[in-house]
């Protein structure tokens, strides 16, 4: 079957989709957007978390056909999404159209660290959303497999709750498993992003 939907602000079309494919599979194997991760494929780890019409969901549990005419934001589009949100509604939610990656760009996706020199002091490389930057700065990334899903979930938390308590953070991220960090530095990262957000307001 064919599925048309919006990914990271751009209209996309997937052809020859098997009806049992998940949104996660379509993103990873057909859209060239492997940032959303396939850790459990049963909704028990959160690594594949994306925004579907603004709502965080496990993309492994969304049938590809269910996203017809809907909007998806993945970790690859998170920085643009956050930037657009900040530009249009400082402190508020993203509107219906956010900036994004074109399919062309997406298909040419490459691990491209070679042309990107990261700054070892701040981790600063390209344009990152505040939560992405905070994850690097707080040491919240080890193997990084859980990171994309956590970032999407944490960004959404900070969108609706600018200064969450620790209990709020724990509850909001309770659907995202991490096996490396013991979560302490993930908590640090969310606290850091919230504090930085507060400073800029």
């Amino acid at each position, binding site marked *: *079957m064919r599925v048309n939907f919006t990914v990271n602000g751009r209209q996309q079309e997937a052809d020859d989709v*098997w*009806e*049992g494919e*998940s949104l996660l599979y379509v993103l990873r194997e057909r859209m060239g957007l492997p940032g959303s991760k396939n850790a459990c*494929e*049963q*909704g*028990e780890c*959160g690594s594949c*978390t994306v925004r579907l019409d603004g*709502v*965080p*969901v*496990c993309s*492994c*549990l*969304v*049938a590809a*056909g*269910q996203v*017809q005419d809907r909007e998806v934001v993945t970790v690859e589009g998170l920085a643009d999404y956050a930037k657009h949100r900040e530009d249009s509604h400082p402190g508020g939610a993203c509107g219906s159209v956010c900036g994004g990656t074109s399919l062309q760009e997406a298909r040419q996706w490459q691990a491209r660290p070679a042309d990107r020199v990261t700054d070892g002091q701040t981790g600063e490389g390209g344009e990152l959303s505040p939560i992405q930057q905070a994850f690097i700065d707080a040491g919240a990334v080890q193997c990084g497999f859980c990171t994309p899903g956590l970032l999407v*979930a944490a960004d959404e938390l900070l969108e609706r709750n600018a200064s969450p308590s620790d*209990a709020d953070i724990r*509850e*909001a991220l*309770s*659907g*995202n498993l991490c096996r490396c960090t013991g979560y302490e530095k993930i908590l640090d990262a969310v606290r850091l992003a919230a504090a930085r957000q507060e400073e800029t307001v």
Partner: protein
Amino acid sequence: MDFLRPASWEEALAAKAEHPTAVPIAGGTDVMVEINFDHRRPEYLLDLNRVAELREWAVGEETVRLGASVPYTTIMEELRTELPGLALASHTVASPQIRNRGGVGGNLGTASPAGDAHPALLAADCEVEVESVRGSRLIPIDEFYTGVKRNALAEDELIKSVHIKKAAGPQQYSKVGTRNAMVIAVCAFGIALHPDTRTVRTGIGSAAPTPIRAKAAEEFLNAALEEGGFWDSKKIITPSIAKQFAELASGAANPIDDVRGTANYRRHAVGIMARRTLGWTWESYRGNGRSTEGVA
């Protein structure tokens, strides 16, 4: 496999009539796991995401009509007053991501004894509105669960909504899992005080082949409350009544040993949850809710 995408409820019913083996999919929580893990290859998937009315709810005089696909997150946030037991149960469902997608229609459709919504629905009392091209009917929740992962739906019927009695008194819900979040129930217990009818209803999950009510416990408690004049006096429930209620609730369970827990533990835990949730609801009824209601 074919993917059917009805744009309206009528189209969905027509599709189900034409393809009775079609598997409805809404939140995907159960169906997609079965597909991803190669446990199931339905001939047709019937997507209900485009049927807007399934995501609607209406608060009436007596009942809340809750669309089958209203996400658990919405129930938690919007219906806490009208459906406190179900709101608490919704909060225990899997993870925030799952709660954003799943609704009671999925729990009812799968009819797994471990579905988190069942004990709350049984305790609150409700009717399941199902429909086919032949017409619609309301199935009382007590007649809905017919066997292990089986329900009273005909093969051409779909679940449209649940008509849940609005809370006239305190309700509670507890679930035991071996993790503090994102966990399937080892067993669960729901309780609702109905001061309007001077009755108490219960629901037990994961401790029998189907979700059940602890009927003997309810009958005992109803009689004890009535005889003791508790509804009017709002006296503290005596420990012996609570103990007897808990024992009868425990006795209602008919659990098995499995990887999630032993049968003995389930019987034990149902009793503990019955005693505690009775205490919380009754204290709340007495006007001491603040100290006994959990917050999160």
